[in-house]
């Protein structure tokens, strides 16, 4: 479903990768590995269409992403480094507005349920400014619980600063996503294992 063909990318003077290709079918997970600065985040942003490669193509469901950006975005859920959480809005509001932007409408009740699942019960209406960094990350991650409609999940360091219970929660959602026939591309410094699903590795050279 997701294909990268001969991607060439440079940031400033540094050539990050050349001739990078891979294919990801439905129900598969891709783990992008590499030391800091090897271009993991750049590759993920490239797959989202936020960056353009110097040469090569990214194809989603057979179509070049450059030609039909909107059809990729309909299926895409992206969690970047920044939690994309507005300090002046509550967790509930952040979730509702954030998903609305992605084309998914949810009720405040649904938002609260999901926030509770991620350990934020009782703090749904607190402005995000009053939440800790870890809690803000959980607000961002709770979109995974409501992202069933999105076939492609691209997650940049989703496991950072999470405790064991939260990691299990996220892994659970990833398993469900794969079970539905969706794809996941992620980066992580921690070893990741999913029951019943093999993880394809993509190592970015130094």
């Amino acid at each position, binding site marked *: 479903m997701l294909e990268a063909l001969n991607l060439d990318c440079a940031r400033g003077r540094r050539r990050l990768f050349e001739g990078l290709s891979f294919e990801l079918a439905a129900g598969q997970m891709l783990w992008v590995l590499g030391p800091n600065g090897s271009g993991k985040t750049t590759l993920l*942003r490239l797959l*989202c*269409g*936020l*960056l*353009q490669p110097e040469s090569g193509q990214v194809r989603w469901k057979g179509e070049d992403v450059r030609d039909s950006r*909107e059809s990729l*975005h*309909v299926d*895409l859920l*992206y969690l*970047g*480094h*920044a*939690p*994309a*959480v*507005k*300090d*002046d*809005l509550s967790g509930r*509001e952040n979730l*509702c*507005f*954030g998903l*609305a*932007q*992605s*084309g*998914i*409408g*949810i009720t405040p009740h*649904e938002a609260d349920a999901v926030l509770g699942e991620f350990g934020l019960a009782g703090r749904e209406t607190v*402005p995000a400014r009053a939440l800790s960094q870890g809690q803000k990350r959980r607000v961002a991650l709770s979109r995974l619980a*409501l992202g*069933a*409609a999105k076939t492609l999940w691209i997650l940049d360091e989703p496991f950072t600063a999470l405790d064991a219970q939260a990691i299990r929660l996220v892994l659970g959602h990833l398993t469900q996503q794969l079970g539905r026939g969706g794809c996941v591309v992620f980066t992580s410094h921690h070893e990741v294992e999913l029951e019943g699903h093999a993880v394809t590795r993509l190592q970015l050279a130094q």
Partner: protein
Amino acid sequence: MTPLGAAPVFAAIVRRDLTLALRRRSDVLTTFFFFVIVVSLFPLGVTTQSSVLRSIAPGVVWVAALLASMLALVRLFAPDFDDGTLEQLALSPQPLVVLMIAKVLAHWLVSGLPLVLIAPLLGLQFDLPVQALGILALTLLVGTPCLSLIGAIGAALTLGIRGAGGLLALLVLPLYIPVLIFGASAVSAAVGGMSVSGHLSVLGACLLIALVLGPWASAAAVRIAME
């Protein structure tokens, strides 16, 4: 969970930005009071002679509106850029051009519309005749959205740059000049009792051009800033 079409997404973005602006009321009020103070400085610095005030009023109010509008532009995209929300906006299934209009609309409601409403009162300070006060408000009503739409392009181009405020002024003020010219001259014509329809139609044309080209250019600038 329900899938959302263009209109609900548009409305959600406007609602979100308005909510944010209401919670950060100080930012909004600062722009407003800046406008009021700048306008009030001119009689102090120039003259309190009624006839002179009447002739400089259109230009003074309009230049103050330009400066206030420009000051407010730093709030349009920069906070979203910093916390990652702008990135998510660029990944929305809805066309970014449409979402730009939503953001500019919310921005104008909070920083442009208050200027339109207070301007007639400020016009009284300059001893403007009543018919001119109405024209003043009308030109600002048509002109300030223009300023927001054009300014959004500059705001998007200068995202994440050090010294963005000064650079934004340099980039955007020359583009504001036609709106300034037609807006101020319409009010001057009204003061002199002459017809304003010609000026207003050109101003309206500026708004139409800004509405068609502005969001498109802002969307392109946002995508460039995302790279």
